[in-house]
Every structure is written in structure tokens, then in C-alpha cells.
């Protein structure tokens, strides 16, 4: 992947994140930060993939970075973190693998020759496991920073009893 391609893909991820923010009716002051956060997630993911990291770990890293930055943004923009991280991780969803998996499952229903069936089974399982692991890593990657920092903010701001 070329560097230029990474940059345009990052911009695309930012646009997609802001678009989804609008769909979820986020406050106007958070739209630009969401776009930046989406682009940052794209940068981490595609950047890591450029250096040869697997797609699952790249997605996990991107989701974690989004989680961490969304907590910072939540403090400065006075909105809960989920307003920032949900639209921003949506561009990282492995739509293409899910689609390939669905097509594969569909072909398994109709194929009769054993050889083609095996070939399709292998690609379907490959695409499917990738898709599922990426989805799980996105969810957990976003949740982990929240769980780590929460203890601290609770102590600072919640009442003693």
C-alpha cells in the first residue's frame, strides 16, 4: 500500500465517521472532533497494516487509540465518550469480509462438487473468522481504555457514599 493511499483512506475514514455522527444526531460541536478521531483510527489501522501487522491487531490498536482519545475529548468537549467512539469505530468495521463470508455461506448451500465445496469452505471460514475476530477486537479495544480509566475518575468525582 502506498503512503498516499493510506492518507486518502484515512480521510475517507474521517468523512465516514462524521457522516455516521450526523446519522446518530451528535451535538454540532462534536462533529469535527469525531471526523478527526475517525481519521486517526484509520491512520493507526492502515499504518499498522503498512508495517506488516495483521488486520485483527491493527483494528484492535486503532480501536484502543480511539477509546483513549475519546476520553480526552469527552473532558474537553463536555460530552460522554461514547458520543465520540461509536461513530469513529464504524469505519473500521470489516464490511468486505462479512460480505465475502455471507457469499461463501450462500455458495455452500448450492455447490455439489466436493472439490469446489472444500475450496469454498476454506475461503468462507477464513473470511468469517477474520470478520468475527475484527468485530470482537473493535468492541473490546474501545471498551478497555474506559475500564482502565474509570476507577480513577469515579474516585475523583463521585461522592464518598
Amino acid at each position, binding site marked *: 500500500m502506498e503512503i498516499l493511499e493510506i492518507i486518502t*483512506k484515512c480521510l475517507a*475514514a474521517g468523512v465516514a465517521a*462524521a*457522516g*455516521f455522527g450526523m446519522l446518530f444526531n451528535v451535538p454540532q460541536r462534536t462533529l469535527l472532533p469525531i471526523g478527526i478521531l475517525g481519521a486517526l483510527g484509520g491512520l493507526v489501522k492502515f499504518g499498522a497494516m503498512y508495517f506488516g501487522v495483521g488486520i485483527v491487531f491493527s483494528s484492535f490498536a486503532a480501536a484502543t487509540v480511539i477509546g483513549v482519545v475519546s476520553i480526552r475529548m469527552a473532558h474537553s468537549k*463536555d*460530552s460522554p465518550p*461514547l458520543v465520540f467512539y461509536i461513530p469513529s469505530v464504524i469505519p473500521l468495521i470489516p464490511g468486505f469480509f462479512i460480505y465475502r463470508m455471507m457469499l461463501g455461506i450462500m455458495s455452500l448451500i448450492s455447490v455439489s462438487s466436493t472439490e469446489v465445496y472444500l475450496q469454498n469452505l476454506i475461503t468462507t471460514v477464513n473470511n468469517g473468522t477474520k470478520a468475527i475476530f475484527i*468485530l470482537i477486537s473493535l468492541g473490546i479495544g474501545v471498551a478497555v481504555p474506559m475500564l482502565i480509566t474509570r476507577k480513577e475518575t469515579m474516585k475523583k468525582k463521585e461522592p464518598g457514599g
Partner: protein
Amino acid sequence: MNEETSNASEVGSILLDVGAALMSSGASTHRTRLTLERLASGLGFKIELLITQRALMVTVIDKDQEHFFSRLKRTSPHKINFKIVSGVSRMSWRVFDGEWNIEQVAAELRRLKKLPHYSQWLVLSTVGLAGAAFCHIFGGGLIDMAVAFTATFSGLFVRQQATLKKFNPYVCVFFAALTASLIAGFAEFFNFGNHPDAAFSTSVLFLVPGVPLINSVTDMMDGNIQNGIVRMVNGLIIAFAIAMGVFTVRILFSF
């Protein structure tokens, strides 16, 4: 009824309204609980909560533990609206700091519910752009991006119209997926663009149940396993509805 009980019942009702608004706007269970407890302690009460996906139960206990009030409220169907989540969170801090009283909370909640959404055409165009951006991420060229834009735009429009006509929400998703992939499918059928595959697979991405699925993982990590499972199943049914729409189109075009 003396003053304390009426106070507790008033606080209980407003807390239920706030909680129901939060749950149906897409807040996680932990956030709803945290916000309601913050509000209650700001107003000088202790509460016990039961939060489920479609109903809330609250018991308000006053400080001397003499009066309490319990009520159950059904939440409205889920419609994601982060302006409410954000506004309620701000409000809860003001109440917690003792700046606001209960009348102001009620007024602020009414105001937040009335806040305008982005205009329909603006949302349609930006989500369409998001679809085109997705298509670029998965390797589509300019023509594919235009196809993805059109498909997303029309699919979202169909979903909005179907929701207005009060169809079952999963059926709305099915209609939208059908429309979007039909348009992208035409482009693929007539070999339009250099990577029609990318346009076809990204045309339905605007429907992915991102909020239910991410909230599901967050809820489960917080130990709200029951709510997490409910959200997960909801997300999977939506995904299934999308798949049905896409499959229908694939079968149509395979003839």
C-alpha cells in the same frame, strides 16, 4: 400525602423519564445508572435501580429512610440520539453540584427532547458521502464511489420512509438493504465501474448495527450481562435482516 413522599414520587418520575430517554437514545447501561445516581444524589435522595432494555424500575429512598417510592416505566422504542445522551450528562453534573433543582431538570429534559435533528437531506447526503468513503476504503474507484453514494442515499431514504410508516424496525432494515443492494447490484450486473464488488459490499454498511453491538460489548464488560445479551441478539437480528436483503438481490441477479 405529606411533603416528603410527594417529593420522592416527583424525583422518581423525573428520574424514570431521564433514564428512559437515555436508554432509548443509545446510552450504555452503566452510563444510564451512573447518570441517574448522580442526579439522585444531587437532589438529595438515594436510589435503587433495575435497568433492562425496554423497561426501567426505580426505588427512591429519602435521607431518613422513612419514605420511599417505586415505579416501573416502559422505555420507548430505541432511536439513537446522542444529543440527549450528551445533554443529560451535562445536566447531571449541574444537578450534582447543587446548581439546579428538580423543576429545572424537568424543563431541561423537555428542551433536549425538542432539540432539532439535522435536516433530512443533509443527513442523507452526508451518510451517502460516508458510504462513498467506505467504498474507497475497500478499494473502489470514483465510479464505484458514486454508485455507493447513490445506493446509500436511496437505502437510507427508504429506511426513513418505512420508519415513518411504522413498519417493524427489522422490516425497515430489510427494505433499506434491498434498495441499496439493488442499486449497487445493477451497477455490478452491467459491469459499471472498475471494482463493482466493493460498491456492492459497502452499499449496505450504513445499516450495520454499530451502536447495539458496541454497547453490547461494553455492557458485558461492565457485568450487565443480561442487557449485553439482549443488545447482542438485537444487533444480530438487524445483521440478519441486512443479509436477507442482500441475498434477495443476489438471487434476483443470478438468473
